[in-house]
């Protein structure tokens, strides 16, 4: 058994933005409590925020890139995946223009990743075809 450390963060489920305290042991989240000092929830959590965290450590998480070969998704290295995508996007962009490419962004990831996502579409691709469920 390792030492238990605490990390403060914000819940990743709904938009309420509850502050949480995570107990970490041996690189695993072992317990979550509401953060009493959090302005939004003052220590409360719901069943999802407090208990539905095991997905982070689920064995079924994706662990390597996958590329479809002969109809099946097979393991690949990052270099192969990057090359596959860069080649595919470049040839589509060259043949049909940037408007033939579209991006669905993620309402769950950080502001920082979302900023880079739209910057990628507007610079590397050159299109404003970027949307997400945030319009709902």
């Amino acid at each position, binding site marked *: 058994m390792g030492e238990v450390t605490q*990390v*403060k963060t*914000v819940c*990743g489920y*709904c*938009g*309420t*933005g509850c*502050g949480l305290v*995570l107990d970490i042991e041996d690189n*695993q*989240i072992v317990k979550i409590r509401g953060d009493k000092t959090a302005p939004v929830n003052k220590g409360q*959590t719901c069943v999802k925020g407090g*208990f539905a*965290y*095991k*997905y*982070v450590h*689920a064995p*079924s*998480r*994706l*662990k*390597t*890139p*996958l590329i*479809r070969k002969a109809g099946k*998704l097979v393991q690949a290295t*990052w270099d192969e*995946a990057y090359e596959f995508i*860069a080649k595919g*996007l470049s040839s589509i962009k060259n043949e049909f223009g*940037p408007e033939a*490419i*579209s991006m669905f962004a*993620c*309402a769950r*990831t*950080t*502001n*920082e*990743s979302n*900023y*880079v*996502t*739209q*910057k*990628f579409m*507007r*610079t*590397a*691709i050159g*299109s*404003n*075809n970027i*949307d*997400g469920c*945030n*319009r*709902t």
Partner: protein
Amino acid sequence: MGSNTTEAHPIIGNKIKKAAKSGLKVIVVDPRKIDIVKSAHRHLQIEVGSDIALMNAMMHVIIKEGLYNNQFILQHTTEFEKLKKQVERYTPEYSAEITGLSVEDIIDTAREYAKAEKSMIAYTLGITEHHCGVNNVFDIANLALLTGQIGREGTGIMPLRGQNNVQGAGDMGCLPNQLTGAVSITDDAYRSRFETAWGMEVNASIGDTQTRTFERIENGDLKALYIIGENPLLADVHMNHTRELLQKLDLLIVQDIFLTETAEYADVVLPAKSWGEVDGTYTNTDRRIQRVRKAVEAAPDTKEDWEILCELSTRLGYPMHYETSEDIWNEVRELAWELYGGISYERLESEYSVHYPCPDEQHPGTRILHVGFHDLVEGQKVSTFVPVDYTEPIERPDSEYPFTLTTGRRLESYNTHSQTRHYADGVKIRQKEETVDIHPEDAAKLGIIDGDLVEVSSRRGELQVKAKITEQVVPGLVFMSFHWSEVPTNVLTINEFDPISGTAEFKACAVQIKPVTV
């Protein structure tokens, strides 16, 4: 309105319940007798999709009885006469017919909303997921403007956002029509700020919404789709159609933490780091920026979303590189300084959260937006009434498909359930599988009992599911969530969309239900 608060936003639900105990009058507008109704002073159990009929009748009453805020209307609005004319025919009697409510309930609600010192309208997807979702939101704004119930503490319009960073994603510019800082892509001066920083010209023409993207896949114009952390196959309407579209693409890239139903159709799948494994910020439903922190080391071959995009961008000929999430945030603060300039990581460390807009380090953040409605200064804030008409759901029940299906979320599951399948040990879960929630009278007519397997079909698809008999729904109305891939509810839903937002009518379609004889 249209918010199953205790299940979809449990902590906000708790706050409302607590406030109701200390005297807050809560009026719940929802076709289902959801849990928050227990705390309500009145439940307006309207017909699905009849919100505009209700709100227009409320405004009819408010105008007729002189309960509107005349001074506010004169100073801060235009098109009042147009609104008056529009709601004239929405007498409480006329709207009672459409909504299924009593005339008295409509009149009382109108009076209470207008007369209260402070009234607030909170809403969720029950308002937006209709073919008239944007009109529904316009009408909520009309009500707030008519009564001046906006821009002061305890008033206003509160869309309760469903995802941890759905507000932030849009604000960061992940929309076809706006840049980081929620300014239009067509604004030349604002765009040039980005062109200078990014060192290249930025396309000024508005891009495609998700709905438009699907149309363009169908007609063959759209060849490649890159999806980050979304599972549209399961989450979007008319699943059989969505599947055909995904198969039609030349290149489908999916970046996710699990091999979702959508990822199974991808040409390439990229393993991303998840919540708990990354640093950054989220923007919550009331515009608070808060820090999320890395708690555990991710698996060695997974990468963070921005890290992947930087590498791809570089390989595509636009080199992009950041050391930390803080570096990226500081670029956001510089470019969209009006909103975020004063919100540093350091400040979030000491203050926990800051509400944007917060242009500089000395600014306290903006807890209440739209206070400009109450500044009696020149150039004061003016907003236009946008009168709208009630239009019924696109697909009404008929003899062949006699039930209305409405969809939503349940307490313990989240969206397409790829994460909430993994609860900590020992947590007692009530809803372990999907059900179709049906009223006892309808169940008796069909000759089914609780737990019986039924076949639910619409013009677009069919599935088998267990029936849950409950008075939460009314006769003629059934409810299902979209959480379970085993029972993919969206094979049933209709691909009709709001013309402005492109949001689909998840909340109403016609279905038939038959017992399955085993």
